[in-house]
């Protein structure tokens, strides 16, 4: 059996090389076929010019389709109920159509919208939240700009993980959120409603500065008021935020 394992292991290494080298590429990377080298060193192309594209509605209502020319699955009014412009994060584009992330449950929903119904803007900033470390990292293109301490959800009301985007920016008139509060396209996995809202996750300031750096929230990402003010003056709607 050991002999078979040795032979099989060697054959697998060869199989990897041939299998991978033989696939027909849609866009070759311009290198000669190689045998099993680490693909992480295989290519050298310029970094993308942005981290994503925001699609801002230019019409009062946008229908969402299951596929280009497919059936309508959802609809969103512009502006949003808060008054913020309806904004999506683009995942994919085809002629006349865009597949966008949707600000609705379940988390991670996407759908197709008409490209003619939105205006596009390149996004240069992105956010990454670590619920394990209670940190938020701001990056511009590929470069880290700054890391901030934050508070994230407790064990009972965890901050959901996934890829989301900033949907709106409020200057809250009610206490608890600090001077600014971004809405996210994420929703709590355990709270179906909160404070009259649908359980939407926010990125905001706080009246409880001592909670920063801890797992202390109902799912939102809290920052110091100075930090959220800095982000509010910098970030466009549509900015991608990854929570992990």
């Amino acid at each position, binding site marked *: 059996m050991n002999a*078979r*394992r040795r*032979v*099989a292991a060697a*054959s*697998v290494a060869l*199989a*990897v090389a041939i299998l991978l*080298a*033989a*696939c*027909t590429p*849609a*866009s*070759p*990377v311009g*290198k*000669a*076929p*190689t045998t*099993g080298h*680490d*693909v*992480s060193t*295989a*290519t050298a*192309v310029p970094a*993308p010019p*942005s*981290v994503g*594209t925001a699609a801002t509605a230019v019409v009062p209502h946008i229908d969402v389709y299951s596929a280009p020319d497919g059936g309508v699955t959802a609809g969103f009014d512009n502006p949003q109920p*808060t008054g913020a412009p309806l904004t999506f994060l*683009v*995942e*994919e584009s085809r002629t006349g159509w865009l597949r966008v992330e949707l600000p609705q449950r379940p988390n991670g929903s996407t759908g197709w919208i008409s490209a003619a119904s939105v205006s*596009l803007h*390149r996004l240069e900033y992105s956010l990454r939240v670590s619920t394990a470390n209670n940190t938020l990292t701001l990056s511009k293109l590929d470069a880290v700009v700054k890391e901030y301490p934050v508070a994230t*959800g407790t064990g009972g009301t965890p901050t959901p993980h996934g*890829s989301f985007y900033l949907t*709106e*920016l*409020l*200057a809250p*008139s009610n206490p608890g*959120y600090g001077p600014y509060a*971004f809405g996210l396209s994420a929703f709590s996995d355990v709270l179906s409603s*909160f*404070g*009259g*809202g649908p359980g939407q996750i*926010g990125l905001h300031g706080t009246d409880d500065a001592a909670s920063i750096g801890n797992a202390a*929230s*109902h*799912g*939102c990402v809290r920052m110091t008021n100075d930090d959220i003010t800095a982000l*509010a*003056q*910098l970030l*466009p709607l549509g900015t991608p935020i*990854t929570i992990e």
Partner: protein
Amino acid sequence: VKAIRTITAGAALALVVGSALIAVPANAADAYINASQIGVEGSSYPAGWFVGAGSTGSVASTPSGLSISGREQVLNGTPGTAPSGGLVELATNAHLGVVSGNADFQIPLFTNGTTHTGFTTLRPDNFNNPGLNPAAGWTTSGPVGTFAAGSSHTLAEYDAELATLPAAYELLAYGVIVPTGESAVISSITWNGTTTWFTPQPSGTATPSTITVTNFMTAGKGVAVHLTGFVPGESVDGGIGNGGSGGPTGQSFSADANGNVDFTYVYPNTGLTPGQYTLSGIASVSGVIAFATVTVVADPSGTPSAPVATPAVPIKGTASFTG
């Protein structure tokens, strides 16, 4: 004992374009057989896989392969013609994939292929060791030339003895026998250039099947890969390629009880070209290869006319986020 899978997988893979669901043998000479497709012996050996006469046991398909309880003979009545290298070449290039238990290989043949007479079956002497060593002793159930029934010889000796006979021999079948009281699980049998897999046919999906360059490289996004067809519990190594280059991802997995492997792949570099990428899983022992393809497309922001987004304008109002 040779590698389980003939390394011509790329020929089949190259036929795959743009589909997220891949369910093809990696080798055109591969076949996938389950228990319901195994026939029974009639007045003569049928073509394809069948249960031999005198079998009193059972065969059943499992995620690990064909589970055989003795006494049972499982044979393929389409053995092909012997190559110039004879029985030695056949055995050298053959493989019996035994996942568990005990099974013995066997080669039924007519010593006189012209008159279809002189039936015998050759089996390795060393039962419980499924190796197909042509230099080891093989016992013949019937006489072969001057070799008496029940005698043991190497396959080179059989080749030499058969060559002295007035007519060429005829291969009738190949397969396994599991004696009474024994059981075995067989994942595959390779013979005369063809591999029959008794495991489920490998397949794979990538979700999403189309992804932008940025999302393919972004932690928390990437592609969710679901691969099936491995032997439960076996180690599977991840791989990625796009034709021009490729190699292992550095990820290793253990197939679950149903032979599935699930993982998320995020391209580790800061640069990536659009195109079709293959995300694969290669089993280190069984040799099963399953893969899925994902099409990486340019970011929509590649449109030069798209301006850079400006900071959001705050709206005065009541917040109702979860806090």
